[in-house]
């Protein structure tokens, strides 16, 4: 190994390297742009109202994916995200039914704290029991789902008007849905400081290489619990977003656990841990929703539509794997 080989990465300028490191995400946004262009092509009337519908539709899945992403980056996986969303959703709806418009602010804060605590419970159980994450969180998914039914036996409750308005309508210009702005602001407020903190680094460290993390002085157990707690917080926001879009609480968990996993896999988060971010999964959630929408526009039967979505997911991930392999060999 000679000195030039050692210094080789210096040959590329800084910005180029940033793009190279985020190739997958850049590719996803190009794919998203292409899909949007395709949508306008097959549906010339596709306009601001439709973009608004799209933005509000992806809200719950985006937060489910973000929650899952944080946990998976730290080397875990949480199969109770969907149930956590149902539980926080019904708690929010049940409380808002009594709180009034102003009290709803307190309800939102309370639900955020609740989500964080429930996530932390998942994390503590995983760390203390040493039972695999997938088993613990699968078991907990039944616990949270049952708790949701105890809070609301059937759909009900309500949401404050100002709260629902967060996801309704547009912001400044007609092409910018408010749901999208809410999503970006919430994710930025949580993710950017986290990514820059030592905790954020520790999440990546634990997921990437446990031994090296341990030797670097990262407290493995506490970091994992923190990951699950942040995941719980994001799942809580996901539950709130369900309140935002439906206006009520739904005690039966929706398809957000696996939907979130699909979005993070497509979004470039490695299920082995340590790799990925939130930009990719957000794009992936939009891509999956747009594919569904385009298939409706094309009049493709629902059964085929599901098959096509699955095939697209596998294809993109497979192509990504091949590209990565080629890059490593090169």
């Amino acid at each position, binding site marked *: 190994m000679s000195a030039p080989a050692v210094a080789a990465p210096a040959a590329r300028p800084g910005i180029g390297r940033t793009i190279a490191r985020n190739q997958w995400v850049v*590719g*996803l946004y190009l*794919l998203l742009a292409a899909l949007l262009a395709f949508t306008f*092509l097959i549906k010339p009337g596709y306009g601001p109202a439709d973009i608004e519908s799209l933005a509000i539709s992806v809200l719950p899945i985006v937060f489910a994916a973000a929650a899952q992403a944080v946990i998976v980056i730290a080397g875990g996986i949480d199969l109770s995200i969907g149930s956590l969303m149902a539980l926080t959703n019904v708690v929010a709806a049940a409380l808002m039914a009594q709180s009034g418009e102003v009290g709803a602010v307190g309800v939102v804060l309370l639900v955020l704290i609740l989500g964080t605590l429930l996530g932390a419970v998942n994390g503590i159980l995983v760390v203390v029991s040493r039972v695999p994450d997938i088993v613990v969180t699968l078991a907990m998914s039944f616990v949270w789902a049952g708790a949701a039914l105890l809070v609301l*036996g*059937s759909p009900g409750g309500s949401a404050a008007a100002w709260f629902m308005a967060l996801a309704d309508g547009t912001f400044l210009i007609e092409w910018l849905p408010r749901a999208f702005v809410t999503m970006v602001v919430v994710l930025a407020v949580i993710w950017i400081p986290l990514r820059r903190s030592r905790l954020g680094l520790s999440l990546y460290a634990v997921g990437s290489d446990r031994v090296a993390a341990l030797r670097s002085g990262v407290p493995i157990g506490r970091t994992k619990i923190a990951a699950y707690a942040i995941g719980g917080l994001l799942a809580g926001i996901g539950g709130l977003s369900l309140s935002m879009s439906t206006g009520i609480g739904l005690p039966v968990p*929706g398809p957000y656990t696996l939907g979130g996993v699909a979005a993070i896999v497509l979004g470039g988060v490695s299920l082995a841990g340590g790799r990925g971010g939130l930009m990719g999964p957000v794009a992936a959630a939009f891509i999956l929703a747009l594919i569904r929408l385009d298939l409706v526009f094309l009049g493709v039967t629902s059964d085929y539509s599901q098959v096509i979505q699955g095939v697209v997911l596998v294809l993109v991930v497979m192509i990504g794997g091949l590209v990565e392999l080629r890059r490593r060999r090169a």
Partner: protein
Amino acid sequence: MKHTRLFGGLAAATVAAAALMPAAVAAQDGYTIGFSNPGGVGNGWREEMICSAKAEALASGEVTGMNIIHRNTDAAGQLEDIRSLISAGVDAIVVNPADYEALNPALQEAADAGIVVVAVDAPVSQPTAYNLSNNQEEYAYLGATWLFEQLGGKGNVVEMRGIPGHPADTDRHEGFQRALAEHPEIVVVKEVSTNWDPATGAQQITDILNAGTQVDGVWTSGIDSWIVDAFITAGAPLVPIVGADNSGFVTQLLTTEGLVGAAVTNPGSVGGAGVRLAIHLLDGMAAGYEPGPEGTILLDPQLWTNATEEGKAALAGAADPSLDPSWPLGLSIPDWTTYTKEQLLACKAPGEA
């Protein structure tokens, strides 16, 4: 940047593929009708609902295209589906709602876009939407009353419900309670939730029989033939059983020795009736129909029992062993559906090959 090129290529291929595909939804002269069903994919009742909607659209001659979103999801997912149908520019949307309240934001958007909305099977609270449902309260009342009378107003019964929290389950439970109140000497020894899942229901009745509980009659919320099978498997003497008009159960009522029971109709063809109502409304024939939950059109069930000659004839008339045993036999609804049985079984929408 090989990577980027690959993605670009993928996108280009998608566009090319789309160009080759005929635009399936093209509203020329007739109407385009959207249908949103958020669950029960593969369930006979829901499949019949979808097929009846397609058949009615075809039989009407006024519909040129249908856009059906039929997947398992929750209320938030159905909101997305309804919005997709709005974006697709349909003239009317028929929904089997996942929830009474939760769909209102999207249904309001549909109303704002001038789209007619009909909710079938269960109502929605949206004041601009029309509701057309099977009368679930009456379904349970009718069946339970028959059962209690059959037992001479006295005995132990099992209530096998559907999915807790589901509007139809809630309504049926109310009807059951109304019948129970009229028969004070009937005792409900066990109330279980089958989740409308055959395996779950069969296991539950087996457990009850194994526990040695005295059971004189069983009321089911549609998981019926599997309960009869469980009795036979367990070697327990058959007791009066109330079920729905599922093909398998009706066949049992006609052929199983010693089985006394009743089938209450709960036609899946309510989907076709919903399409018919939507067409009426699009044609401007709205007179007599009121939007909102108060205006809900209720389709009353019928009861067919093998305890009477008249009932046996009705059962025999409806039975069709060629049908999937999970399909309900209320294949058409008088005054509401106009398709033939062949059209229903073909399950093709207008323009579908």
